[in-house]
């Protein structure tokens, strides 16, 4: 009996491991956003240089869509860019871009070079709208439902896995 006591530390440790393993399966990317299920904040952004139309919260209604926060300065945005282009090419879901804290003209130059995956783009040079959305960094992507409510928030670049396993299923679900 006394001998068994010496195995107590490893028994407790086994419990800790199980619990860490469960903890690991939880996705910290799914930060609770206070905005989830709330209507997207009201905004009306001007177009970026060289574009005719800006982006306002009115544009979001009627169809499931994505809002993508990006900037020409954002290296991680290059990582997700091919995925966004693919979405645009196959016409899966409209992506609205918010060009965040970009110097005038830089956003347009970047889009010209890399390709434009966005249906409409708003220029948020001052970062005010990004604050209303609770953006913590770029890239960040919001899924908006038909009524213009925010239903999901993803932080970080959209890789093909993220698109297939997280974002696309949510979009499908919301279309029902």
């Amino acid at each position, binding site marked *: 009996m006394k001998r068994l006591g010496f195995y107590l*530390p490893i028994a407790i440790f086994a419990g800790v*491991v199980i*619990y860490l393993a*469960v903890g*690991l399966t*939880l996705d910290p990317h799914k930060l609770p956003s206070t905005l989830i299920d709330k209507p997207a904040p009201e905004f009306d952004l001007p177009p970026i240089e060289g574009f005719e139309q800006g982006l306002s919260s009115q544009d979001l209604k009627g169809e499931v869509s994505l809002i993508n926060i990006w900037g020409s300065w954002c*290296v991680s945005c290059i990582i997700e860019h091919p995925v966004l282009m693919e979405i645009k090419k196959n016409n899966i879901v409209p992506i609205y871009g918010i060009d965040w804290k970009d110097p005038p003209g830089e956003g347009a130059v970047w889009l010209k070079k890399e390709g434009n995956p966005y249906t409409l783009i708003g220029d948020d040079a001052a970062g005010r709208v990004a604050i209303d959305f609770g953006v913590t960094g770029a890239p960040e992507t919001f899924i908006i439902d038909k009524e213009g409510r925010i239903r999901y928030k993803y932080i970080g670049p959209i890789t093909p896995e993220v698109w297939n396993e997280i974002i696309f299923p949510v979009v499908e679900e919301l279309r029902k």
Partner: protein
Amino acid sequence: MIAEIGHFALILGLVLALVQALVPWWGLRANNPLLVRLTERVAIAQFGFIFFSFLALTYLFVVSDFSVAVVVQNSHTTKPLMYKIAGVWGNHEGSMLLWVLILALFGAFLARRGSKMRAGLRIRALGIQGMIGFAFILFLVFTSNPFARIFPAPLDGLGLNPLLQDPGLVFHPPFLYLGYVGLSTAFSLAAAGLLEGKIDRIWARHIRPWVLSAWCFLTFGIGLGSWWAYHELGWGGWWFWDPVENASFMPWLFATALFHSLRVVEKREALKSWTVLLAILAFSFSLIGTFLVRSGILTSVHAFAVDPTRGVFLLVLLTLAIGGALALFGYRAPKLKPLGSFSPVSRESGIMINNLFIISACLTVFLGTFYPLFVDALTGNKISVGAPYFNITFLPIMIPALVLLGAVVRLPWKKGSLKQVLYELRFALISALVIGALVAWFFWADSVVAIGGVVLGAWIAGGTLTDLAKRIRLKGSPIKDVLSRAVRLPGAFLGMAIAHLGVAVIVLAITGVSFWRVETIGMMDIGDQLHAGNLTLKLDKAFLGSEENYDLLQGDFTIWDGTEVVAAVVVQKRFYPVRGTETTEAGIHSTFWGDYYVTMGPQAEDGKLAVHFFRNPLMPWMWFGAILLVIGGMVAMIGGHKPSSKAKESKAS
């Protein structure tokens, strides 16, 4: 090219670590001294290759090679050189490289400096060190390659997180890692001792300097981190019970308990299995801390980028290392028989009880840190456990331990008398109470606890000084004898006394800053004044400016105490355009009795500044106390004690 060479050196280090992990057991079996020598050489060569790899990465940062991914993400051409170098460990990959570098460094030291150590113990410890090294280099190479290229290479990088661009933080991680990873030697030596079946006085003597050195580094690293938070985060606080702070604090508590109980093994050959368990757990908590920061299991200021494969890899590593050691403990520890017995009133009991308090306190920290995760795992709710939890659980457990500390230093080994000790400490007790009464009389702070803190600090200092006075027989001997006795005090004792004085000073600092703090908040325009108690804060000037890699908003303030000017401080809000983030450089004026601390928020629409003004009494004592702890640890380590005749005998055998 340099990146590829660095990568290659790292892989060679991996291979050598594997050799180091395997050869010792073969060497022991074949009883071949050549293989033993080989293991030593391999440990040193492994360090050499990893060091080369680290230099290669540093070079890439210094020359801003933006074809390497980590450089892009953590550096920028306009950054000062010091922060380009600091960028090496300001990210997951580079800091992991630093981690294995330090692991290899300790391994190399064990191989070179450990020659005085029992060969069977050292060689086994080197083998275990090799296993840990192999596992972590494997982790680095496969999931976190710091030399990965990016194509096409961008013209400039993203810059280092500006919060990290502070001298305090340049050195914080290396010291913290020296502490964290330094505990690996204690772990290896504990497992080696179990394998060898000899946990005795000599084992305790061998392991002690390794534990103490790691503890010193860890203390210094934690102190620097706290100092940084105080100066840079601009919240006026110095400890936030952030999960990652806790992750460094838990191994520290274990290491603290460990070198105290090592004393018992060394002196009395008792508490053996408890001590071995502490040695295993101290490093285990370092590993858990590493997991916490790097697995993405939680988000924090400290957390690195999230990547699930890393988390799984680390969890497997953790399970093998800790699980293996604990299984060995379960199998071998029952065979460890204590030689000495001791009475309930003795130094041994005192240390044991203090140990139990420290470990219980550590468990409350552990629960507080992991509970939110636990709740999330079970119910999906996200909660956070904040400072109030820790203050009501951790502190009440630590207080009895600290009260005991003042007395246990005077308790003799084996058997003592409480009455005798209290009699010896009567002056310490009376002066502590008198100091408490005086403070209560002149500076009543509406709290009995505050006065209790003062009494506690004075009591620890009094107990330590009494002990010192008795050792050098201050009373009734000629001053010459006293001085010569003082000079010849053993390092272990002197170190302990210095460190305990450090504890007393820290207790006083915490009490002062928690209970006598004065603060006020207000919106200020140029020329406005803000009042807190007798103090007046005036905003003299506010202007915008720009520096090499940031823009700034500066406020110049003057502080009056009554009608007398006591300080002029400068506060800056810095805006780093590359990352689009802000930091606050708090304006701090330190005096012996405390800090004046001013910080400000963003400018409002009408041009006014949100200003937060603190008077933090005794705050500088915190840093002074931490330095005393480190000096005490170093003195105890260096001036340890000469090996006794017994130790020599067993080495010969």
